[in-house]
């Protein structure tokens, strides 16, 4: 089968929605997990070992192995969510991102310092109220560069999903290379597509973050 460059490009780009869906869902999940974990780790010393263990697991087990474990391993016993490769990919990456984001936010909390919390509590807020109203907005702004690179990382790691069968960009490139007996073209284009989507996202988040930081005087 022969395809010209444009057909190749279009076929590959059709994988973008899946790439973006996986990374956005994983990022959102990571945020929902990472933000509370970070605050728990800093402010509730008794529970901190749970957070440490969670982070250790995701620092120590490859995402690929986890995807295979959940999709083909657990998927056998619980086909309902896990046999679906898209779900498993987003699930695994979401958990991983939670561990990374927990670290990012922890750094931000330390960077901002305790005075903010103390000031809020002296004004009558309870600890968790103070955290929600005073710390969280600052932590989010402070963390934008780290979050930017985490998001770029998620876009790249979405490529792991091809192994369990998600028809995102990399899988499409692999299919094309088999069917057209030409590997270099689809993969080179794929590489450039990824560079094109990671570069501006990280830059934009960085710049937006710096602007807001200046406004907040951080």
């Amino acid at each position: 089968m022969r395809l010209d460059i444009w057909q190749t490009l279009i076929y590959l780009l059709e994988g973008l929605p899946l790439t973006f869906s996986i990374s956005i869902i994983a990022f959102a999940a990571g945020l929902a997990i990472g933000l509370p974990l970070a605050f728990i780790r800093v402010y509730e010393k008794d529970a901190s070992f749970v957070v440490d263990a969670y982070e250790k697991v995701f620092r120590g087990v490859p995402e690929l192995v986890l995807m295979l474990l959940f999709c083909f391993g657990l998927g056998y016993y619980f086909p309902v969510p896990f046999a679906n490769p898209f779900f498993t990919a987003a699930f695994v990456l979401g958990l991983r991102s939670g561990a990374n984001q927990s670290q990012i936010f922890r750094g931000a909390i330390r960077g901002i310092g305790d005075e903010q919390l103390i000031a809020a509590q002296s004004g009558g807020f309870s600890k968790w109220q103070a955290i929600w109203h005073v710390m969280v907005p600052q932590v989010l702004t402070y963390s934008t560069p780290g979050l930017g690179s985490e998001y770029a990382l998620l876009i790249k790691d979405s490529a792991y999903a091809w192994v369990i069968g998600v028809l995102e960009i990399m899988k499409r490139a692999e299919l094309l290379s088999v069917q057209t007996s030409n590997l270099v073209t689809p993969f080179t284009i794929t590489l450039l597509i990824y560079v094109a989507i990671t570069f501006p996202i990280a830059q934009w988040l960085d710049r937006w973050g710096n602007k807001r930081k200046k406004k907040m005087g951080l």
Partner: protein
Amino acid sequence: MFEQFGFIWQFYPQILQGFTLTLEITAFGVTFGLLLGTLLAVGDIYGNRVARTVIGVYVELFRGSPLFVQLFLAVYGIPAIIHIPINHYLLAFLIFGLNSAAYQKGYMKGAIEAVYGDQMDAGLSTGMTKTQTLLHVILPQAYRIVIPSWTNEFCSLTKSSSALAWVGIFDLTAAGVEITGIYYVVLPVWIVIGAIYLIWISAMAKVFDYLYEKWKIPGIELNMQ
């Protein structure tokens, strides 16, 4: 299901072989990456515009795309283009190293810049050349500062080495794929493989943290406020 764990014990040789290869490739990648990364960082700080542009493009390409894509292109693509078969291992190791260097350049650059300003002035004021100051004053300090980031890179690299299984390298993940492929034992195999990665990485991280404490310049963290 628990008998299946015992069943896995028969595959000890494959697992060991795969694990050894994972160790080799990680060791190579992390060392090559550190050395090349240092060169790139120095080139980025010192070099002329051409050097900086080349380095910038290189880093952007390797950091902006998934390792998987890079591996496929290198291992299968390069021999196809030049019509000469090249050993998969050679290409895979090389790309792995180049990928790590792109990330480590960033860490080294950060460490060097944290040390740079005043220490370069001090070195020059004693009559040493820029190069001498870099070698004897700045890099010794930068390497000690960079250890935490480097430890992270080590963990990251070990995890991403799992991709090599799909370019014909028989690493730990490939061992897992083989076992699950031949026998209908899936979940326990991946649990075991995952556990091996976890124990190995956690242990190494502890080792590196210990070394960081041991080799730290006294008071360096105070100075880094």
